[in-house]
């Protein structure tokens, strides 16, 4: 039928290449996993689980208050987390939280500089764009198997997959935001002899802030959308409940797990977004609370 096509297939080559890679270098990658786990992920998780829920809830409440300055929201966020505890999912919540803290931190640490760099170099953008496309659309499932053959099951490949998936929106929107900064302001800053770094800190980042924060919001959302996938490769947490809910057609359990993920997403998002607000907005907010007038 489709006679215009050559017959082409890399299936066998890919398969044997993966197997060879695993056989030859699998130990090395597994060692990396072990080091990351022992020195980093496991202690963090142990720490979080070890904390009394009261302390965690209080801590998050204080943090939320500091960021948001709005009782209603703070109470809603803390109540949401408390609800997860009532579902009996507190330990899993802490496991997922640990995973998310690590993934989001990594995403920001990689994504922000990458976006900044990209905004400065059209050539880099040309190279990076298809890579970002791949990161975002190559189904996680596809690389999950090779990745977990290399790194083993569990948290490390989960963090890896999450970062890969959550990175592109942050990079893209950072890039976009900086490119949209008013040229006249940039020119004025340059005229006073700003170094590229000063320009970035004083002009580009603050003025691109709304766009960057939208990128961060997307990154957080996508990271949390990966929680279930993370559980598919043996990472503990809220995703487990969703998975087992699905596998057993126990929609109730799945939904409870799913909504716990949503609550966590909203908590993380609201707090990061509030901290991402500009000084001026935060000031205005505080005044509004005080003055009572809109």
């Amino acid at each position, binding site marked *: 039928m489709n006679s215009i096509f050559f017959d082409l297939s890399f299936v066998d080559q890919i398969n044997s290449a993966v197997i060879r890679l695993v*056989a030859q270098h699998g130990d090395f990658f597994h060692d990396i996993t072990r080091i990351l786990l022992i020195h980093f992920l496991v202690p963090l998780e142990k720490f979080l689980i070890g904390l009394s829920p009261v302390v965690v809830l209080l801590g998050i409440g204080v943090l939320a208050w500091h960021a948001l300055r709005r009782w209603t929201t703070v109470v809603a966020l803390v109540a949401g987390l408390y609800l997860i505890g009532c579902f009996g999912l507190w330990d899993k919540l802490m496991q997922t939280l640990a995973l998310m803290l690590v993934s989001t931190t990594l995403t920001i640490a990689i994504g922000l500089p990458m976006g900044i760099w990209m905004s400065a170099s059209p050539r880099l953008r040309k190279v990076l764009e298809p890579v970002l496309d791949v990161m975002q659309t190559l189904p996680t*499932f596809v690389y999950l*198997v090779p990745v977990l*053959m290399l790194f083993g099951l569990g948290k490390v490949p989960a963090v890896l997959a999450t970062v890969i998936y959550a990175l592109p929106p942050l990079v893209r929107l950072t890039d976009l935001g900086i490119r949209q900064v008013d040229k006249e302001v940039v020119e004025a800053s340059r005229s006073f002899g700003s170094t590229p770094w000063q320009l970035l800190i004083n002009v580009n980042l603050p003025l691109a802030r709304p766009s960057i924060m939208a990128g961060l919001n997307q990154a957080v959302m996508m990271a949390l959308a990966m929680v279930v996938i993370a*559980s598919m490769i043996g990472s503990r947490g809220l995703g487990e409940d969703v998975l087992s809910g*699905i596998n*057993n057609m126990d929609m109730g359990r799945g939904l409870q797990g799913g909504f716990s993920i949503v609550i966590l997403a909203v908590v993380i998002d609201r707090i990061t977004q509030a901290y991402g607000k500009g000084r001026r907005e935060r000031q205005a907010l505080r005044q509004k609370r005080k003055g009572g007038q809109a």
Partner: protein
Amino acid sequence: QSNVCSPDQTIKFAGITWESGQLYTSLIRNLLEMGYGCKTEVVTGSSAATETALVGNDLQVWVEQWNRTDIVKKGQEMGKIRLVGDLLSGGGAIEGFFVPDYVVKGDAKRGIKASAPDLKSVSDLPKYKALFKDDEEPGKGRLLSCPVGWDCEKINTQKLKAYKLEGDYTNFRAGTGAALDAAITSAIERGKPILFYYWSPASLMGKYKLVQLQEPTYNEKCWDTLKDIKVKDVCPSASPKNKLTVGVSTPFATSNPGAVAVMEKLQLNADQINGAVVQMTDRKASSDVVAREFMKANPAVWQKWVSADAANKINAALK
């Protein structure tokens, strides 16, 4: 022939997510299409999705049912589906705890020394917990277990309790069947020790040399305590063999008794199915290809399952 399949209906088969199920599916489809002129189609999807669809008669046939999910149980109770046939001779499928054989015997060719020469039964496991170390739970060994939500995952949890291994081993749930397979393959390709739950028929069984650990003998009362996750007071028992059946939706079964009759007769032995499945993984051949080859090579096996008339047609079609 009219009671085998109605001409205006396409029989929808669930796409099974493991090889033996795919092979059985291909066999049945070949028999029905070639022998009786039925129209069939495979709809892929996760097990939960396709099982749900079967209960709703969105799908008609779900081959290689292990009959362990709540969906299937409830579907049966409500009379929406029936489980028919006995696909694997010798009582059915087996499951249990496995290690690669080089762990016990070593592998001179790859230069691997036996790391647990005395490991024979689950009672030996506490000694070797450092060998099967779980990095995420330092101090414990790792039993690579079923994905969350599979029945075997819960059974394994109960078994760890019953075998008094709870303190020494984590029931490390692989998230999916694919993850489980990948983790095992990775360990074996690297020649590392690994302790895992597995079952047969399956391609890994044919592909690698594995050693099954002995478990306390089967005991029906204890087995019942293992099957129910809520029971605290567990006693040890090995898993019994599991009968593999074909799930059919009740409306389909009532209107197509002839097709159901074929499925009821269909049966392979462990060697046959494992041999065929290994073909699939080794050559990455599709189940359709392997099923055809199998039918060509073993006419005697399948001719028992169909009418003489249909057998002739199938033979003609295979040429």
